[in-house]
């Protein structure tokens, strides 16, 4: 064996061992996620049924009932939060990428990144101070505000990133046609980046859909249907939390179904 083929073999060995190592690391990362999913499915799948989806919770001690109000509540809260989060977030992202001075933009980005890292319960406190106290009560509005504020820095950053990916050549070509700047941004730049913006919004919605802490003292939870937005509203994460830490077996089963859902 001459030295070249020996070196070649050594390179192959290195290549293979690195591939195996990378694969192993990927498995280690995915494993907790897979285990959690598996547990959820096992615990809940056997008992999801029609009653769960359409019935209200039964009084304490009685077996049965469902989480219909929580499902509806979560959807309501997501809708309210999107109404606040999406316009502000997308416009903020547009401002960062298309307008704004360099220094101002740096500070805005910095602020958005800091806000992204704020624990979600702090947003609950903010909404408590801003909405619950003046309204003298818990409400869907407060929950929507808390979740909406959480969405804003997330959407700002993702929108900005996606807009920056639109090549400058399109903006220049449109400018050279004598189209006003705002129309270029609206009809060409945003249109080109639309898929990315929608992805960012969906990610933000998915993130806040699972938040429990900000809803603890804003939406507060409700064991009945909520008829007005200014009343407390149930939400899935809240209901699951309440049930899971309770001493009742039936509630534990319900929590499992909720998690599955």
């Amino acid at each position: 064996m001459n030295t070249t083929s020996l070196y070649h073999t050594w390179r192959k060995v290195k290549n293979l061992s690195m591939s195996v190592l990378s694969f192993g690391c990927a498995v280690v990362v995915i494993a907790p996620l897979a285990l959690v999913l598996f547990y959820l499915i096992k615990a809940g799948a056997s008992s999801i049924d029609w009653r769960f989806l359409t019935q209200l919770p039964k009084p304490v001690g009685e077996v049965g009932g469902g989480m219909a109000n929580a499902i509806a509540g979560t959807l309501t809260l997501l809708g309210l939060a999107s109404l606040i989060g999406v316009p502000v977030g997308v416009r903020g992202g547009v401002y960062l990428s298309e307008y704004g001075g360099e220094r101002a933009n740096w500070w805005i980005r910095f602020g958005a990144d800091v806000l992204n890292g704020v624990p979600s319960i702090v947003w609950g406190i903010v909404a408590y101070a801003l909405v619950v106290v003046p309204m003298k009560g818990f409400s869907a509005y407060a929950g929507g505000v808390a979740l909406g504020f959480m969405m804003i820095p997330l959407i700002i950053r993702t929108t900005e990133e996606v807009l920056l990916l639109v090549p400058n050549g399109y903006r220049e070509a449109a400018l050279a046609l004598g189209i006003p700047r705002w129309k270029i941004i609206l009809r060409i730049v945003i249109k080109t980046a639309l898929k990315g913006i929608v992805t960012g919004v969906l990610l933000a919605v998915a993130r806040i859909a699972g938040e429990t802490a900000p809803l603890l003292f804003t939406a507060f939870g409700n064991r009945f249907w909520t008829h007005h937005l200014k009343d407390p509203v149930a939400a899935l994460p809240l209901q699951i939390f309440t049930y899971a830490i309770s001493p009742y077996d039936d509630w534990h089963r319900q929590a499992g179904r909720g998690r599955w859902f």
Partner: protein
Amino acid sequence: MNVTVATAQPKREGNPLMTENNQSLPLTHLASSKPGETPPGDAPATKAALEVDNLCCWFGLHQAVYELNLRIPAKAVTAIIGPSGCGKSTFLRCLNRMHELVRGSRLSGQIRLFGEDVYGPRVDATLVRRRVGMVFQKSNPFPTMSIAENVTVGLRLNGIRNRSVLEERMQRALHMAALWDEVKDHLDRPGTSLSGGQQQRLCIARALAVQPDVLLMDEPASALDPIATMKIEELIQELKKNYTIVIVTHNMQQAARCSDYTAFFYLGRLIEYDRTEKVFTNPSNKQTEDYVTGRFG
């Protein structure tokens, strides 16, 4: 500066400088790059589409163009040649007010489009850009739009909604860009589905649909293969009958083939500006001669 234009000049095809006796008028001092030098009384007999007076451009502290004086004749092709970084594209962008979009850019001097000051205090830059169109080096049809929508985007986004007007202008623009026969059967396909040369012609059609007075071309064929380049050059010859064209090019042979007048830039200054034949066969300036014969650049 007062430029007197000879009146009652008969329209001659392809050679706006000929008198009635078919004698060529001397093209003295169409350009001057030295500060303080006044142009002579006998002015070019051709109507100037764009007049540039003492134009200086900066990018921050770096000056890119020094005291440029130039008259670009109407309905003719003017080529701007010079080595990289000599200010050709910067100058072109000043003509349609795209230079000011760069952060930190600055300019002084005056540019007049058919007598009107382009940088006047009440002039809307978007209106200037509608009258002075531009085609870029890298073709950039909008990816979210079909071919037909690409051509009419300049009209639609400026408020024209009448379907028949849009249809008619689109067909005319595609005919003028020599693209109609190739795309007439699939106008709904996305703009990016065409080949490189076709995309560039689509961009030209898009620029023409807005019916500008002047068409600026920044190295339009430099990213294309020879056949596509030839088609673009033929297109330019056709277009000059109705439009004033200013083309920046790295390719001297292209400038020699396509243009009526050629301006040679070097390090931000205009060195020579004259009829193309003269610049390439008998240039007045030694630097020009060195450049066109390939001794540098």
